């Protein structure tokens, strides 16, 4: 598969006269992990929102290769189709797991929601599937009927990932998935994400301000500043030999122990 799964051209989002992100272009290939790094307010999240259709771009296109094989402009397609993609072919992992989970229902119901959304109507099978996914994300299967409110932050984040991956999506958007977790929990989560990405051949767009996370997870990096992509290339290349002054600043700002 040499054809890109997502092709972005000249993507610009304006908030009135203020620029959210400007003239972003990239191709994302199947199985590839693209990291978007930059400081707060540099337009990372704006870009991510425009990529999955939550924000309407001022101009530019986002094309996605559907399972039928055609490249469809996600902003030109109807909302029903986009929401269907969002429930089945795509996944979105929020920084705060509480934004992505239904806190009032059990872990099993959280995982089963997407399955029921695509027409599963057999309780036993839905539950078996949920238990299987809890195992995959290293949560004790005994806790399938517990509320996610009783889970630790790291477990909630892993549950959110399970809930999103249950319909076998092909493209995953992640917004600071490890933010707010302590380092050991973060390491375990990164390990899990890396395994899942490799096993399932997922394409991932991951937004992070943490360069260590970017180094571990992403194949390619885009560095953003003030809404513009100032540099993009292979992760190791950018982190080891940054060319743009801002990238150099970013890399030199990493704390050393």
């Amino acid at each position, binding site marked *: 598969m040499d054809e890109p799964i997502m092709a972005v051209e000249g993507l610009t989002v304006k908030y009135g006269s203020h620029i959210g992100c400007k003239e972003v272009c990239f191709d994302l290939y199947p199985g590839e992990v693209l990291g978007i790094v930059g400081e707060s307010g540099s337009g990372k999240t704006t870009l991510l929102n425009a990529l999955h259709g939550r924000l309407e771009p001022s101009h530019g296109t986002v094309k996605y290769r559907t399972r039928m094989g055609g490249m469809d402009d996600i902003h030109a397609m109807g909302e029903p189709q986009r929401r269907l993609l969002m429930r089945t072919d795509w996944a979105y992992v929020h920084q705060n797991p509480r934004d992505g989970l239904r806190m009032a229902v*059990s872990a099993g119901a959280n995982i089963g*929601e997407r399955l029921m959304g695509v027409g599963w109507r057999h309780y036993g099978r839905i539950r078996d599937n949920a238990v299987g996914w809890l195992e995959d994300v290293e949560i004790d299967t005994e806790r399938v009927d517990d509320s996610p409110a009783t889970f630790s932050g790291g477990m909630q984040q892993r549950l959110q990932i399970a809930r999103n991956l249950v319909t076998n999506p092909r493209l995953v958007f992640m917004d600071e998935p490890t933010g707010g977790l302590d380092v050991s929990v973060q390491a375990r989560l990164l390990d899990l994400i890396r395994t899942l990405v490799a096993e399932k051949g997922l394409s991932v767009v991951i937004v992070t301000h943490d360069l260590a996370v970017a180094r571990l997870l992403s194949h390619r990096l885009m560095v953003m500043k003030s809404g513009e992509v100032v540099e993009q290339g292979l992760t190791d290349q950018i982190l080891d030999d940054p060319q743009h002054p801002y990238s150099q600043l970013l890399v030199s700002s990493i704390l050393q122990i």
Partner: protein
Amino acid sequence: MTTENDIYNFAYLDEQTKKMIRRAIFKAIAIPGYQVPFASREMPMPYGWGTGGIQVTATILCPSDRLKVIDQGSDDTTNAVSIRRFFAKTANVETTTKTEQATIIQTRHRIPETALREDQTLVYQVPIPEPLRFLEPREVETRKMHALEEYGLMHVKLYEDISRHGAIATTYAYPTQVNGRYMTDPSPIPKFDNPKMDQMPALQLFGAGREKRIYAIPPYTDVRSLDFEDHPFEVQQWESACALCGDDQSFLDEVILDDRGERMFVCSDSHHCQTRQEQGFHGSQMPENHAGGLQEKHDG
């Protein structure tokens, strides 16, 4: 001389309001199960006492109609009595407690046991018309879910029931899908009554006053109660029969008799129970020669 009938327009509401509500009702009938917004009026009673149902009844009421009002199946509880008197006063229509004689039946929480006919209309009082509300608090989002028929969330609620209680523990306001399309709240009737809604010959209208919504199920429309393949829909069952009329097919209320745990189960539909007693049926708490005894007490 001014009489009460001159003070109120027929059936309390002014004609412009009735016209507006009629339009909403027509739209509701045309799209079975769809919640039509309407400009709900202030009624001379608090929200939650049936203001939606009353506005629907007031709108469809004609001088020739015969009205029955029930609350939890009973004709003689506060809510039923006050609404019946309200229409007797403002519309001067005939009222009845006999299900088969009524042309309009306004109800809270029950469907009469007697099967309804084509020439009857059942008006439900609805507190919360949106079946998805407790799962999704945003109105914009629930409307979108209805529009796109994204109803997976409703099953999440049933899933949660089974995982917590081992069975679908929702016993009232049990979610239904009307005409194979809209997810519809049957109002807080017991799920015992859900099967009666399916292919009912009578028109069913639902009014939610506080939430400002009207919806309808036209006669002979499919109404399916949601379930799972391995946990099919079931209605409540009781171990005993009605203590007064001996019926083992009707919906029973539990009545506490003393402070030592004594209790009995009686029909929640008071008219149904009385009719059976008059026909000579009797239950464990009602010896044969006392049949009809409750009726006499009321009259006295």
